[in-house]
């Protein structure tokens, strides 16, 4: 399935992402899995500005960037146009957006695309804040993270609300495939992208992609942090098929869960957290993992 396409990379090197950017790792795996018979839309954000500066492009497949909030509705238009004019439906259509372009400003367009049952896979590259504009808080930002608009301070612990459960909300649209994935588990990610593309209808793959610049960790720690997020239960890898959101299948389950402290301590966005805060986060993760039987 992948060998033939991999001869030609669909996501060219030489783009302008930061060293250690989780998105780059994710994009290479995703586009190589999708292969050249793919049309993509991309929301405004890091991925777009680092890969499409005129007159160059890192995209070896057709790409359209329109604006921030509408990657999914532009993709809807492409899907309908191809269906109307060609009627074969063999071309993969993927809409890419960051967490801002998915969780927040792009959510209405995404919900519309799901509801209308377009054969589009939406891939959210989640680095848990508005990184392209300078690390501002998003509804994807986790509890306790210090960002430029939710800074930690004398009377602030940073972001004081929990992360919005995007994949579960997406699944509640009764779409055929929803998954969470991580750059630390590339095979798992590629399998999920394949399932999403093969699904008969809309799909979401929510990819956890660490950001050394915004999380303030070493650029060689991205994969390790992504793995720790899974091993601590901070970010659970699961999938749900055929609209059965109640029947969640956890795809990566380490034998023993590590304490969240191991994950938090490696990032300066969490450096201000007291033992008490960390305990609170641990308790919340424990409760969530119980739900996932993890």
């Amino acid at each position: 399935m992948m060998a033939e396409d991999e001869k030609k990379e669909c996501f060219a090197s030489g783009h302008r992402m930061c060293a250690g950017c989780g998105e780059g790792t994710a994009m290479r795996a995703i586009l190589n899995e999708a292969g050249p018979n793919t049309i993509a839309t991309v929301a405004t954000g890091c991925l777009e500005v680092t890969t499409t500066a005129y007159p160059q492009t890192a995209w070896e497949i057709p790409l359209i960037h329109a604006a921030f909030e509408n990657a999914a509705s532009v993709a809807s238009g492409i899907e309908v146009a191809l269906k109307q004019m060609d009627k074969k439906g063999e071309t993969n259509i993927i809409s890419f957006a960051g967490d801002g372009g998915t969780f927040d400003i792009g959510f209405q367009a995404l919900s519309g695309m799901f509801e209308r049952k377009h054969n589009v896979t939406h891939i959210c590259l989640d680095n848990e804040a508005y990184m392209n504009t300078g690390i501002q808080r998003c509804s994807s930002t986790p509890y306790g993270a210090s960002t430029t608009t939710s800074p930690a301070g004398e009377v602030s612990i940073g972001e004081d609300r929990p992360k919005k459960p995007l994949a579960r909300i997406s699944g509640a649209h009764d779409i055929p495939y929803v998954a969470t994935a991580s750059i630390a588990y590339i095979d798992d990610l590629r399998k999920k992208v394949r399932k999403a593309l093969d699904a008969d209808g809309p799909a979401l793959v929510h990819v956890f992609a660490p950001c050394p610049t915004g999380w303030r960790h070493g650029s060689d720690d991205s994969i390790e942090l992504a793995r720790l997020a899974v091993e601590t239960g901070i970010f659970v890898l699961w999938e749900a098929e055929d609209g059965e959101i109640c029947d969640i299948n956890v795809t990566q389950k380490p034998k023993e869960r590590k304490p969240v402290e191991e994950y938090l301590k490696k990032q300066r966005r969490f450096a201000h957290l007291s033992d008490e805060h960390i305990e609170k986060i641990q308790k919340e993760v424990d409760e969530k993992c119980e739900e996932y039987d993890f």
Partner: protein
Amino acid sequence: MGEQKGMTIQGNMATALGAKLCRPDVIPAYPITPSTLFPEKISEYIADGELDAEMMRVESEHSAMSACIGASASGARTCTASASQGIALMHEMLFIAAGMRLPIVMAVGNRALSAPINIWADHQDSIASRDSGWMQFYAEKNQEGLDLMILAFRIAEDERVLLPAMVGIDGFVLTHTVEGVQVPAQEDVDEFLPPYEPPHGKLDPENPMTFGSLGTPEYYQELKYDQTEALENTPEVIDEIFDEFEEEFGREYNRITPYKCDDADIILLTMGSMSGTARAAVDEMREEGEKVGLAKMTVFRPFPGDLLKEIAGDADGLAVVDRNISPGFGGAMFAESAGTFINENKSPVMKNFIVGLGGREIFKENFKEMYEKTKEAVEAGEVKKLVEWINMNEDVMR
């Protein structure tokens, strides 16, 4: 040449029928008063098997224009309809459609903008998107709405143009008013408007391209220059296609159509449905011996300054009648008309009249008043008040 068929229909149905004759592939649309009948009619045509197209019932106007962009970039003939707040909501995407040189056509049911909320006619909605890079056509009557849809597709898709176009019909005054129209035969429209194939590429895995690149300061200005030049080069193409249309279908279109302007001392410049009332007023004033003419603007973007100079350059006075207002200055058509005559050796005395906002009626008497006021300014050799609001309800003003 097939026979044209007479029908008596509302304006929205005329623009929908015009669109249908153009065989669009994809129509993403969101309902908004007063243009809702357009997507309703398109849905009916598809449901009855009369039109082979996909109607996308999107969740907002922003997504409607976004889907238009995706579909048009894929090589589909694409159109939509909207009005007022809908056009305001898609404002961001209008610039992007034009910047990507996508020949999308939008039927507009021209309506006032909030606040206060008002569903009735004025041109504020499309005028507010004047700088988006779209061509703008305005109809006086339903026949023009129908014809201009066909013309808009043909002009927008011309390789020398490749820009989106909106066709405005005044809310309720035209959108919901029944008038007789002549409907061209399908085979003749097919001949006039061949199938659309993007001349410079589309979203195609066989030939991958990136649309909507990041334009850094080294390139952005040149890319905008190219786009602007394309729009400024369109008058020649528009005139050529208007002539061809007249030959094929027997109806004359001009970017500005003069009426009794040759010997006129004072000319009224109008746009949209008010032009019919203005013409009747001109006829009555002519009977009374007044040397007055009417210039009806059909194409607002690109602004037909060349024709305005030809038509009004020798007149003593020009009354520019705007159904829109840019608070802090005046009407858009006035500002551009004034700009047109700057640096000319001879220029008419100009006055701006704001009329018909939010569906306020415009009567023949109002045009006579505007004529008189312009004439007074000409005779006095002085314009005391540059911008005047006409047909104000003084009781409400108190």
